[in-house]
């Protein structure tokens, strides 16, 4: 266990740049959350072990339509605040009457957070080529703090899963992950992702996941025979 766990209020250093999850008091940097310390050459930050997703402009998230009003859709984005997708931020020009046809209540949508207005009014947009309404596959939900582990260093973990299982994966920053492909592939990918969430802070996680996928595949092969 090489990682350093801290509780809120733990002293982290003097005259270092305070990254996320920290606060400064009289030039001294302290942790603000219960989590793991990450030190760079100059900056120190604390990655929380739990907590709610706080929307940030530019993030791609997966939202669930919970209401459709006369000029916008209201989306649950797995955060304390709802996301608002206005008709004017929708890529296609559609009539108000057709809103229900484009996106129904209960459907999952990949959207981008356009801006966060005071006081926490979240405006969404669809102006990214990845943005779309999800019409196939499965969306699984994990704690958003574990998303960086699912992606891995420079995308290593996610590429491993994609390569070994061969299903399409889209990761929303808010902790929702969209999987598409054959049912069997989706099932295995979902199991793998939940395993990563459970064992997020184990050392050499990639090797474990690699072995896990191999074993699962072998097991299935035997059953088929």
């Amino acid at each position, binding site marked *: *266990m090489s990682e350093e*766990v801290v509780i809120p*209020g733990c002293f982290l250093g003097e005259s270092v740049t305070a990254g996320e999850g920290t606060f400064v008091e009289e030039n001294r940097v302290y942790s603000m959350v219960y989590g793991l310390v990450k030190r760079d050459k100059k900056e120190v930050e604390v990655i929380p072990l*739990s907590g709610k997703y706080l929307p940030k402009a530019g993030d791609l998230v997966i939202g669930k339509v919970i209401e459709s009003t006369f000029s916008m859709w209201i989306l649950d984005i797995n955060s304390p*605040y709802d996301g608002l997708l206005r008709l004017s931020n929708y890529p296609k020009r559609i009539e108000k009457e057709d809103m229900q046809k484009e996106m129904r209540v209960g459907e999952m949508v990949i959207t981008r957070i356009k801006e966060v207005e005071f006081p926490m009014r979240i405006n969404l947009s669809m102006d990214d080529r990845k943005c779309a309404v999800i019409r196939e596959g499965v969306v699984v939900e994990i704690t958003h703090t574990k998303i960086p582990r699912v992606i891995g260093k420079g995308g290593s973990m996610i590429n491993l899963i994609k390569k070994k299982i061969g299903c399409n994966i889209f990761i929303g920053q808010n902790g929702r992950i969209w999987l598409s492909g054959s049912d069997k592939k989706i099932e295995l990918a979902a199991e793998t992702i939940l395993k990563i969430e459970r064992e997020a*802070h*184990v050392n050499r996680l990639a090797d474990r996941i690699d072995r896990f996928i191999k074993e699962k595949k072998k097991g299935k092969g035997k059953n088929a025979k």
Partner: protein
Amino acid sequence: MQNRPEKLINDGVRLDGRGADEIRPIKIEAGVLNRADGSCYIEWGGNKVLAAVYGPREAHPRHLQDPRKAIIKYRYNMASFSVEDRKRPGPDRRSVEISKVSREALAPVLMLEYFPRSSIDIFVEILQADAGTRTTGITAASVALADAGIPMKNLVSAISVGKADGEVVLDLIREEDNYGEADMPVAMITETGDITLLQMDGNLTEEEFIKALNFAKKGCESVYKLQRRSLIEKYEKSCSD
């Protein structure tokens, strides 16, 4: 209820065998509830308390929302079986007061401005009571808040001090609370020494008060260490599984 013991302190030894400045055994476990965002179970002498934290989540009713920061809700509740004579369930004058002072004891460490318009809900259930339940509740709630990943400046630790048989004693048991001369719950941010809760029932002289406060400081230091350890243990446990 049993009658008053003849003596609360015999030759400097208290009814349960402790010295004046010793605390009861404490066991803290973080993350015991799966549905809650953060939780904590604590056994402190005869007290058994469960704390759960939800949020930040949308505040209801909406007129309570604050556009600049999150609001805190704190609910202190005693189970009907937590004391010898059945406690009539539901909020009463005492529990409403304790909820208010406990909420205000925790507010100074919480960084509420990160979550405008939302609410952080804290539930503290007293399963078994043996004096000092409000301080036990605050100690547990503070661990549960950290476990929920809520931004905080530090942890809050709490302990009670008082006077029994003319002597200042730390961490009262029920007999000392019922038949003693004074009871003073204290909550503080141990690392900075800031006091966030201080109440007193009974009388203390100025000298006794200063002595009691020093006892409380010492007590909070021990409590803080146990709080920190419970959170670190939770992480280590999740690694070894």
